[in-house]
């Protein structure tokens, strides 16, 4: 039923403007033509011209921050040593979270862990999106914390999106599925080279650039920018 309801969300990405100023926590659904379809319960829904409106995210939950020092249950990188947070680190993260869009932060209980070193050399943070877990490592201080946090929260956002929204990003961002089920990208320019590895990583990279890099438009096409703005619910 939920999936059927989400079928109403058909966003024409060619349009780059919003007539309605939607409040935070909601996003624009641009006026569009909706094709006819049959709901899961068998109800036939006629095609229609849908007017522009604001729609709440289905996944938004009041945010609750947990700063944890133990190894997360089912954490696969068992050799990573988990430690406690400093008061300064907690404050920095709390401040950044307040400045990010609700689509990234209002995800219910966000479990933030702190470990010494990543299994992967040079890695500043790792997320387990299905559990709302992010682990930060010592070397996060070498990076901009806002960028790292935005990137990992974008992985959680990707997990929260419904299939239709993911498919729209897949299509707009030139991802292709071949006959054997292998997924690859055809774009000439990506915001980060590891974005070619999966739509999810590409999405996280692009959201990070959009929200933290003033010159994001040099690496992300206007169509992708517009798609991301609609997904996140921002206008700038």
């Amino acid at each position, binding site marked *: 039923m939920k999936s059927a309801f989400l079928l109403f969300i058909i966003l024409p990405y060619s349009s780059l403007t919003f007539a309605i100023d939607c409040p935070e926590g909601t996003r624009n659904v641009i006026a569009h033509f909706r094709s006819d*379809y049959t709901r899961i319960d068998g109800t036939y829904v006629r095609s229609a011209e849908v007017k522009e409106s604001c729609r709440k995210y289905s996944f938004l939950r009041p945010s609750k921050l947990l700063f944890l020092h133990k190894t997360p249950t089912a954490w696969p990188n068992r050799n990573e040593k988990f430690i406690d947070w400093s008061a300064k680190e907690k404050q920095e993260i709390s401040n950044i979270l307040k400045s990010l869009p609700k689509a990234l932060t209002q995800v219910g209980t966000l479990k933030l862990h702190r470990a010494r070193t990543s299994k992967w050399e040079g890695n500043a943070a790792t*997320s387990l999106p*299905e559990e709302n877990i992010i682990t930060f490592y010592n070397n996060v201080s070498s990076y901009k914390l806002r960028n790292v946090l935005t990137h990992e929260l974008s992985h959680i956002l990707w997990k929260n999106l419904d299939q239709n929204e993911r498919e729209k990003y897949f299509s707009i961002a030139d991802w*292709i599925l071949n006959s054997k089920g292998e997924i690859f990208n055809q774009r000439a320019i990506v915001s980060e080279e590891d974005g070619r590895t999966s739509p999810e990583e590409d999405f996280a990279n692009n959201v990070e650039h959009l929200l933290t890099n003033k010159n994001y438009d040099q690496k992300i096409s206007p169509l992708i920018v517009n798609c991301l703005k609609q997904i996140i619910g921002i206008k700038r």
Partner: protein
Amino acid sequence: MNKKLNVLALLFLIACTTTTNPIQGQPQALTSWNIIDGIMLENWNKDKIESVLGHSDKVLTDSTNLYFDQDTKMQLFAIEYKADGQVVSFSFKPQENEVAEFSLDKIKIRWKNFKCADKSEQVTHRDYIEKRYWLECQNQAIVYYSNKKEVSYLTFTRK
């Protein structure tokens, strides 16, 4: 009295015969299932498939033929053919208006005889840990779905 009953019966008959058919204009879902069944069960070849889908919109370097939805421009089928037009493998991505027809539960019922089993794995990437879910069937068909049990795409490879 009989006359009144006859009028009522006539009105009832008219009401019944003018009820809107819930499936009008052959929705795309039926067409997609027809093609999938055609390829998997009836050995449809390239000519037969393209008589329904039209010519492919793009051909990849690995000779995969891509077919896109004409309205949404989103990918529908990717099909690899042999030189004689027989299908080697295909993938299919349900469109927005097909979500109900391609729900995981409906696929499981439809493919009951293919003996499908739910599988999952956890993949560790450099900066995120991904959980993958799929339905693996004994006829070489696989259905990939999300953490919310929404079908992303399905694939089939001929033995």
